[in-house]
């Protein structure tokens, strides 16, 4: 069994970036200044991810205001809607409002991503995107959901053509709701991953028990499913099944507490999961979005994962 570790969610902005974005909003700092700081801190994050020996890099997605915003910017037909609570947290996102079936606008999303090898591109999963968007088109929900899946497919096709090889779908709604009609889910993922795109598709779930999705991975075309181990009872997970060729993601760094996880507890957890589920490989990462913490705290908590990066046996 091979284990690796990686950042699988957004990372928090540093205090320096926070201060700059606040000053920019108050008209006391230029947009260029803020962009320069985003670049500087994206490099810091990439360096951190490299130093930890993580399996891939994210750059933190620091400039993304929420999971959906850059995608809204890469489309026509979706408006930025009302502030809405982000599941059971004290943070909020702008609800995507589908005013008409979305059209892909090329060349927009890549500007949000850093130049780096081994990058993973985090995107909203089609189920969560459709479930959290507001449909004002007057069309059926399923039709709108499929159009959003097509939009995601276009984004991925473009980024793949530019060299991106790893796409990670965030599906908190699947875990939070605890269920989804299998055929509908499969259909959406079929649209997103269609066309032989030369890339790896991964899924990370959080804010609920995502153990039920793991056995579904092959049918969805994803080669990894991550579960939030602060919300998924270990007993539920170990009663699940990990299909052959699917990596199991263990969301074991919890951003809902600043308390650092102990290396020993994680090692024991890995041992228990391995002995009961025998997954071919495991990826250790955050249990939920790390931008629920300040940067320094997130960095400290994630650092414990370096002990698990690149282990085998």
């Amino acid at each position, binding site marked *: 069994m091979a284990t690796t570790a990686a950042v699988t969610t957004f990372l*928090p902005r540093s205090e320096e970036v926070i201060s700059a974005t*606040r000053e*920019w909003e108050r008209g006391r700092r230029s947009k260029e200044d803020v962009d320069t700081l985003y670049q500087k801190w994206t490099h810091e994050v990439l360096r951190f991810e490299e130093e930890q020996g993580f399996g891939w890099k994210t750059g933190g997605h620091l400039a993304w*205001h929420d999971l959906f915003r850059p995608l809204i910017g890469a489309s026509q037909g979706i408006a930025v809607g009302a502030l809405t609570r982000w599941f*059971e947290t004290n943070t909020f996102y702008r609800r995507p409002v589908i005013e008409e079936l979305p059209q892909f606008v090329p060349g927009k999303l890549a500007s949000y991503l850093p130049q780096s090898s081994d990058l993973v591109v985090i995107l909203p999963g089609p189920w969560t995107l459709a479930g959290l968007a507001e449909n004002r088109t007057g069309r059926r929900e399923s039709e709108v959901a499929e159009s959003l899946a097509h939009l995601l497919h276009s984004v991925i096709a473009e980024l793949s053509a530019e060299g991106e090889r790893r796409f990670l779908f965030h599906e908190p709604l699947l875990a939070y709701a605890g269920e989804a009609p299998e055929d509908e889910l499969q259909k959406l993922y079929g649209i997103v991953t269609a066309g032989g795109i030369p890339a790896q598709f991964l899924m990370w779930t959080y804010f609920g028990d995502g153990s039920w999705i793991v056995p579904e991975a092959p049918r969805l075309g994803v080669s990894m499913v991550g579960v939030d181990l*602060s919300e998924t009872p270990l007993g539920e997970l170990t009663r699940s099944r990990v299909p052959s060729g699917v990596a199991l993601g263990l969301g074991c760094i919890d951003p809902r507490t600043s*308390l650092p996880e102990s290396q020993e*507890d994680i090692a024991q957890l890995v041992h228990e999961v391995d002995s009961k589920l025998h997954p071919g490989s495991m990826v250790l990462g955050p249990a939920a979005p790390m931008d629920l*913490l300040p940067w320094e*705290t997130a960095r400290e908590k994630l650092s414990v994962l370096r002990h698990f990066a690149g282990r085998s046996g």
Partner: protein
Amino acid sequence: MGAEPLLPTQEVGSLRKPFWLVEGARGGTMSPGALRELADNLDRAPFSETLSTPTLEQLKKGSAAGIPTDTVREVGSLFGLRFLEKAGLDLVYDGEMRRVEMYEYPVQHSTGFRFLGHVRSFDNKYYRKAACVDGVGLKNPYHLEEFSFVKEHAQRLPKVPVTGAYTLADWSWNEHYLRQQPGWKGPEQRRSAQREFVVDIARKIIRPTLKALVEKGARVIQIDEPAAGTHPLETALVVESFNESTQGIDAKFVMHICFSDYNSLFPGMFEAKNCRQFLLEFANRDVEGRDGYEDLALFEDMNDGREVGVGVVDIHRDNIETAELVHQRIMKAVKYLKDPTRVYVNPDCGLRTRSLDVSWQKLVRMVEGTELARKELT
């Protein structure tokens, strides 16, 4: 301060701090905008107290140099109080003019917490968040000086707002209590640790503070629980924290909750035995084609006769509700609750995100609309 009229009107939370107060508290020269705002609002908050006159006169001249910060803040408190009284409210406070916000202040008066940094609320908005790193305790009861000042100067019944235990816990990270849980911190361990954290805050921070406020003469205390609806499965914990906080204290307790799914909170919240009034937001959800007050049927269905503070003006929009619209909304609430003596009238929440001008107009229309409803009902 006589008996309350039918449909008492009340404030909920903070007003936006005037620029002259913010700049004045820093000392130095006042900006033209701050001076203009001061001039524009003097009629809305007539200061007659000698306490404020010399300070005001100096501020009007454009300088706060040499004025002690506490004095400027007292003037701010008096401004907020008179602003709400002149608008015609029956229950008032001072617009929380001395408070930075509702989380940091209580935490700073407590032990066991350590601020770790800023986290994003949304977009480029952030808040400072603390971790509970040790068992919690109280340095000293807070809001006492502020309340005494308001009580001394209020010409209407003062109602003091206090952030609730559940919200303080939910907006903090729980390290200490989680650390006590052995082994892997899964869902069960996290929930157990959170309950200990919430109940400890209720017993060791909120209860002694409420007791001290009552000893200072507080008769109506509003426990603010904006986080109450964040975790739909934790209603019992919100209730437990409220009951623990208020246990053995003789005062009228009000619980304020807003922007939540009331169907997930009620009827569970009725177990908050010391709560005499639920003060809730409704205007925000009362839009064309939807009766925003229909959730009030929950109160009737459950045969719970407690008072309800009914939000009749939206705090997120600048458009000013007409007196007629306020009147209609009150009558809707009366229809659902069946008994007008159970109805209190208020904005959905604090008006701090609106300008003072907009807040003033909204409050005045609210009072006028209440008058229309009173006439209809008597």
